[in-house]
């Protein structure tokens, strides 16, 4: 057998150089956003991950007006927030991340986002007090608030009129209205019970003065199973037991077909929901109206579950420029126009509350200005505090709601189990929780 060593040598040199080229190109392409160029001639490049609809238009506007700081937007699904931690660890996260208030706490605890107080402390007056606080942890500021989620009651005016039911102002009136509607027409329900959405429950829980967490010195105290939650749980249990709510998962085709055929008569829900009703039920134009949420007293308060923020991971090399951009994005008039009109957001910035687009009337809403009702609600809203591992609590709530929908458990039990799940998840992370 002739072993040609010359051939082997050639092949191995070829292989080695190919491998070397692959390795080098691999290193080059894994650079996180931003370049190290400190010369003034080339612009600072930032990357931005988020999911607000049409936010690209705001980014384009910034890029036109700021040639020295260029932002590249990467659209992601909001589920992809779960990837942020791994991305930051791997060094491939964007310079700016859209994040929910609850998820931000975990990122701060993981020490994966930057304290930008030295760049934005003087900007706090641009934003609503409670929204600004959602980015403040300890002595640092870890995000600039983008939007907020006050609650109001969106209802089918025509259905309520048809059955002669007056629009409820208190929760007692709400239960009566539910009974009246359903007995007038068994195919009509005052609202839907959607096991896959925890925030509907959380918003009512906050309205009763509840909070997810309290801080007791150095210990986190889970408050999800405190008194306020039992009030809300009992109310939901009554509605379910008496068959007064349509049980369907939100965002499914089943859900929207129930909305469209008038099975669901109202939603007590958050400021970003009107846009979605308009998109998914275009034939119902002119039939909807908005009013303040029902409450115990009849005069509010409504609740605000808190919205999202823009935060800057520790891996970003340009926190100052990134802070400048996110402050502009969330407080500048022209940017707010885009976020409100096309993004459907309810702004955290004070200037946003006066915004024309937010307060304009709409034919879909029978000539009413739905945004104005939410602005009114936002001025008299209560919000609970968040803490670590809220996602574990919400997931447990959702699993539990499914059981309640199948009559395999009660709301009261489910809330207690969810609180315990949150305690366990937080203590598994090595925190002191009770």
């Amino acid at each position, binding site marked *: *057998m002739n*072993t040609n*060593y010359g051939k*082997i040598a050639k*092949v*191995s040199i070829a*292989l080695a150089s190919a491998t070397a080229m692959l390795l080098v190109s691999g290193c080059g392409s894994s650079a996180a956003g931003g370049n190290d160029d400190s010369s003034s001639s080339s612009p600072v490049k930032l990357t931005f991950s988020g999911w607000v609809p049409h936010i690209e238009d705001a980014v384009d506007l910034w890029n036109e007006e700021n040639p020295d700081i260029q932002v590249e937007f990467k659209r992601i699904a909001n589920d992809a927030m*779960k*990837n942020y*931690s*791994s991305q930051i660890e791997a060094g491939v996260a964007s310079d700016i991340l859209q994040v929910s208030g609850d998820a931000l706490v*975990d990122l*701060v*605890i*993981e*020490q994966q986002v930057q304290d930008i107080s030295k760049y934005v402390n003087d900007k706090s007056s641009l934003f609503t007090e409670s929204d600004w606080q959602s980015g403040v*942890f*300890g*002595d*640092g500021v870890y995000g600039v608030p983008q939007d907020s989620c006050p609650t109001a009651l969106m209802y089918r005016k025509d259905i309520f009129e048809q059955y002669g039911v007056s629009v409820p102002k208190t929760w007692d009136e709400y239960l009566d209205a539910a009974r009246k509607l359903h007995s007038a027409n068994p195919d009509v329900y005052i609202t839907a019970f959607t*096991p*896959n959405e925890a925030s509907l429950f959380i918003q009512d829980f906050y309205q009763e003065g509840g909070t997810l967490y309290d*801080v007791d010195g*150095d*210990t*986190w105290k889970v408050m999800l199973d405190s008194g306020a939650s039992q009030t809300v749980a009992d109310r939901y249990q009554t509605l379910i037991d008496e068959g007064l709510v349509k049980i369907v*998962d939100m*965002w*499914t*085709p*089943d859900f929207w*077909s*129930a909305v469209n055929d008038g099975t669901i008569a109202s939603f007590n829900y958050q400021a970003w929901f009107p846009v979605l009703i308009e998109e998914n039920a275009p034939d119902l134009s002119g039939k909807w109206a908005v009013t303040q949420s029902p409450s115990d007293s009849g005069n509010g308060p409504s609740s605000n579950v808190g919205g999202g923020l823009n935060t800057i991971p520790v891996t970003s090399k340009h926190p100052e420029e990134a802070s400048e951009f996110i402050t502009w994005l969330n407080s500048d008039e022209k940017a707010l126009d885009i976020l409100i009109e096309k993004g459907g957001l309810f702004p955290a910035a004070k200037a946003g509350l006066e915004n024309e687009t937010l307060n304009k009337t709409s034919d879909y809403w029978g000539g009413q200005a739905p945004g104005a009702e939410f602005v009114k609600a936002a001025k008299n809203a209560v919000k609970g505090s968040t803490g*670590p*591992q809220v*996602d*574990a609590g919400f*997931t447990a709530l*959702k*699993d539990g*709601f*499914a059981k309640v*929908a*199948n009559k*395999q458990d009660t709301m009261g039990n489910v809330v207690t189990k969810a609180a315990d799940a949150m305690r366990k*998840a937080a203590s*598994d*992370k*090595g*925190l*002191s929780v009770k």
Partner: protein
Amino acid sequence: MSDSSASIQGPRRGKRRGPGLAPYFFVGPFAVAFTVFLLSPLLVAVWSSLFTVKRSGLGFGGTKTSVFIGMGNYQAALQNKQFMSGFGRVLLFGVVQVPLMLGLALLFALLIDSTLVRFKRVAQIVLFIPYAVPAVIAALLWGFLYQPGVSPIVKGLRTIGLDVNFLAPDSVLWSTANITTWCYVGVNMVMIYSALQAIPQDIYEAARIDGASEARIAWSIKIPMIMPTLIVTLFLSIIGTIQLFNEPTVLRTVTSNVSSEFTPLMSIVNTAFAQKNQNLGSAMSVIVALVAFILSAVINLAQRKWEEKS
């Protein structure tokens, strides 16, 4: 004769030329890839499962230390009721779905191989096409076919008086089994059919001369001769079942009756990524790997015993 040829040739030149370094070049790339992508992550996971992270105070700006806790994570995982019931669920799923699917695949393969079926090629392609559909798309497709508001199947059944709920808490596991079966019957059928082709035809002739019917040939000749292939498909199906993830996760978007920890792998994804507890997630992954390993060993033993018997 041989003596004279040896003396004519003279002493041998140089040492014996063996294969040299060539085998290392061939095995090298695989060995590197195996080590980097399979072995190292496995070792990292096992190492990480022995630790946990302790934080001070509220966690803001405090210290974060990795603490060795030995079997602590494993204890926590085994005490996690939802994780354990996830195992129960996939084992129940496996006990029913795997024999059903492999039985169907075997039946189809035997039918196509026998003289009873025409259009063999078309039949094979039609049965194989579901495998070519990406798993997530297949699950979405069936998800729509299960939803009462939009499904032609549900509506059709309703017109003949049958009110079926594919997504009820009791039925959603079997609806998932339906999707998995639909996806993988084809590829198993093709594997079994290929094995059947390797059987020499004269055995069949001898059997027919002896008066055996097609069914008898199938039962007594074909099945025993393809037993190794059947064992392989059993193997692969069981490992696939333990790792059930795609179909329940997709169905979760259309019904809440699939919980967040429906299968062990969903628990792991929830723990490692949603709760960001990678130490506990690693321990759970090692447990899943061990269960798969044990089941594989059991099948292996059963196969040996069967071979010894015959």
